[in-house]
């Protein structure tokens, strides 16, 4: 026996030992949360909702098919190097299911690492648009809504308000965007949609953090647009609404994007926010059965994660709950294939790639109306999420539209082109999704 053989035997033995240790049947979520710093409002709401839902599953159902969900947190403050530190600190815990950093910057830094470690990375409602192409990004999932779909959803909504996509012709839209990687992500797609549908677009940057916007709104006043799209973040949003009021631009002609749609964005603006409309993938409010169950099971037992109970059912909290639903259901779907035990990251990845929740299933989960549906595949890691629009009445958000579908057919070629370029740059061989899915269905048929 050579040394190599001995080493291999030792490695096998150690793997056997660690998997024996993990037999307690737990699935672990490492949380790179941010509860302090400039973006704490988003972080506490989102991770609060996520943890609340995991708690609900543990308390009400005893875990997912008996597999307990566990988690621990590391503070990132939305900063990349802190996110990397937390990643390295938490990644060796057994049974990691998926990563949910809720930060574009941290997600970018993790793509390499999680691909090597074979664990999924979830960037719900944000992230790198071209990571939608699962053939090039097997472990990255911008679930529900990537930035391009969001843009297309907003344009389709405005078309609806004008009475048809052809009525957009000759209209003028100003996009007021946050001067950051996140803010800039959609510049090319607005230009492209403007060309496609014949409206005029003017994109104006607000430098971070955006607490002074006099100049931008004077430009807007001179441009006299039909709509202003607010692509903001943090303090920029209330300041935009207040400055709009001062310059006399009507709030109901301002449409906020998915990171300008929370209670924390409109409350500080007071009156100026009345009538403001924003896109969302998950409605706000605490009336949904799943939110009610969280109040009953988690909060009434004093195990709730939010310190301020008034924030239950707020936009960020509900986003965290929806994120919890998607993560838990991916595990459930993967368990149906691989067995009711602690899954590896790669097995959870398969679960996400087969995460199909139609409206009936969403209703069964107690989330009817909270979000629409999702249909993730090997090639489409976004999953065709629908969007809806909500209007702020001064007290709360009211849904004012149906569930709107972005123009996926139009966006897909752009996404594929960008992903293909990435594959070339980083020497990635795209996967053959048709073959993998065929293999899956053969295995399924033979099992039946």
């Amino acid at each position, binding site marked *: 026996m050579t040394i190599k053989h001995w080493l291999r035997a030792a490695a096998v033995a150690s793997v056997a030992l660690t998997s024996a240790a993990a037999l307690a049947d737990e699935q672990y979520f490492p949380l790179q949360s941010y509860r302090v710093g400039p973006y704490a409002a988003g972080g506490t709401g989102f991770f609060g909702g996520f943890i609340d839902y995991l708690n609900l599953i543990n308390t009400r159902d005893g875990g997912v098919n008996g597999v307990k969900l566990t988690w621990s947190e590391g503070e990132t403050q939305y900063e990349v190097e802190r996110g990397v530190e937390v990643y390295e600190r938490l990644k060796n815990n057994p049974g990691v299911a998926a990563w949910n950093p809720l930060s574009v910057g941290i997600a970018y830094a993790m793509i*390499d690492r999680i691909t090597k470690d074979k664990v999924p990375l979830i960037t719900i409602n944000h992230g790198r648009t071209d990571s939608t192409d699962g053939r090039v990004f097997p472990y990255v999932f911008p679930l529900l809504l990537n930035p391009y779909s969001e843009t297309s959803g907003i344009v389709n909504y405005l078309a609806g308000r004008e009475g048809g996509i052809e009525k957009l012709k000759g209209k003028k839209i100003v996009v007021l965007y946050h001067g950051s990687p996140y803010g800039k992500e959609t510049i090319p797609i607005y230009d492209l949609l403007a060309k496609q549908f014949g409206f005029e677009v003017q994109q104006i940057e607000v430098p971070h953090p955006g607490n002074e916007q006099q100049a931008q709104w004077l430009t807007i006043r001179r441009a006299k647009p039909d709509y202003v799209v607010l692509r903001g973040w943090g303090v920029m949003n209330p300041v935009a609404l207040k400055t709009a009021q001062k310059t006399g631009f009507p709030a109901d002609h301002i449409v906020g994007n998915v990171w300008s749609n929370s209670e924390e964005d409109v409350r500080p603006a007071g009156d100026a926010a009345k009538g403001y409309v924003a896109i969302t993938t998950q409605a706000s409010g605490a009336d949904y059965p799943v939110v009610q169950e969280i109040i009953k099971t988690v909060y009434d037992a004093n195990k709730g994660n939010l310190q301020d109970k008034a924030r239950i059912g707020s936009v960020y909290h509900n986003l965290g709950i929806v994120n919890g639903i998607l993560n838990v259901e991916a595990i459930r779907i993967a368990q149906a294939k691989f067995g009711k035990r602690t899954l590896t990251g790669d097995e959870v990845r398969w679960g996400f790639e087969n995460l199909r929740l139609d409206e009936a299933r969403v209703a069964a989960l107690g989330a009817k109306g909270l979000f629409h549906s999702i249909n993730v595949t090997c090639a489409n890691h976004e999953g065709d999420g629908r969007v809806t629009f909500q209007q702020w009445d001064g007290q709360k958000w009211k849904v004012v539209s149906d569930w709107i579908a972005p123009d996926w057919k139009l966006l897909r070629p752009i996404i594929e082109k960008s992903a293909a370029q990435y594959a070339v740059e980083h020497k990635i061989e795209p996967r053959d999704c048709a073959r993998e899915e065929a293999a899956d269905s053969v295995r399924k048929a033979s099992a039946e």
Partner: protein
Amino acid sequence: MADVAFRLAAPSRRLTSGAVAGALVLASAYLLPPLVGSTYLFEAILLPFLALSLAGLGLNLLTGYAGQLSLGSAAFMAVGAYAAFNFDLRVPGLPFVGSLILGGLSAAAVGLAFGLPSLRLRGFYLAVSTLAAQFFVQWALNKFDWFSNGSASGVVRAPDIVLAGHVIDGPVERYLFALTVVVAATLFAVRLANSQTGRNFIAVRDNETAARIVGVPVLRTKLVAFAVSSFIIGVAGALWSFAYLRTIEPAGFNLDRSFQILFIVIIGGLASIRGAFFGAALIVVLPLALSRLGQAAFGGAFDSGVLELSQRVLLGALIIAFLIAEPKGLVALADRARARALRPFLKPPYGG
């Protein structure tokens, strides 16, 4: 005259004992971590430590030796990182070390441009004008997506480091690569500090008028200080992005980073090569140690809010304490501790 002779002789004697110590540190840096370290040690402690040490070293040449206060360090790091990325991308066949050096040179050019005000401005006013570099560079990198090769968000994934056809992969290899770069830069800095240029730096810092009278070319010295310092900081920025984070984004090189590097220099020790390493070690390890200690001592009560506050309070207190009690920083503390430990063995001080 005797005084001068002593001063000239002293460095060489110190150099020999220093060289032995340096060789020991170097050998253990190359051998120990790869033997015992976990990936956490490399990815979360050693790699950021190396990059920040190098940045601190660069700033120390400018601020510690030449006495020019700069708040634009993070901007020069950003220039180094983005320039290395672009050279790597756009010049086919260029080895990575070439991109790294060209990245440093680009940072040096930008540093030179923003160093021009130093010919007229001093101290506080110069610091404010280097702030302009900080804001301008971040703005430009955000504004023009050519720098990030058309990446819509301005964030790019750092390409692999390739050395002579071998892809530097895994934390250990990246650590060894970064260590080698840092060692080379440090040797260069030591040589520079002990050369005529280094003495000119100190002369300009201590008394500009006197330096001019004894014939030190003040303007040239200042510009050289800016260029060399920015070069090293630019290389540090490339290491930060390529070896440590493996992503390049303008937001990571913000004003906070500039202050962090300044604190490294102040706490570690102004006008000292080792100071940058001591300071960086403290800055990297302090928050991690604090969070572990806090968790162990107070459990759940020590949440992230408390942690963040205690970090800031402690760091602020340290800076004030060092500025008042020990302006020479951790280096002076370490030297005193060593002298005390060695005293029993070195009975006759300096051979009488």
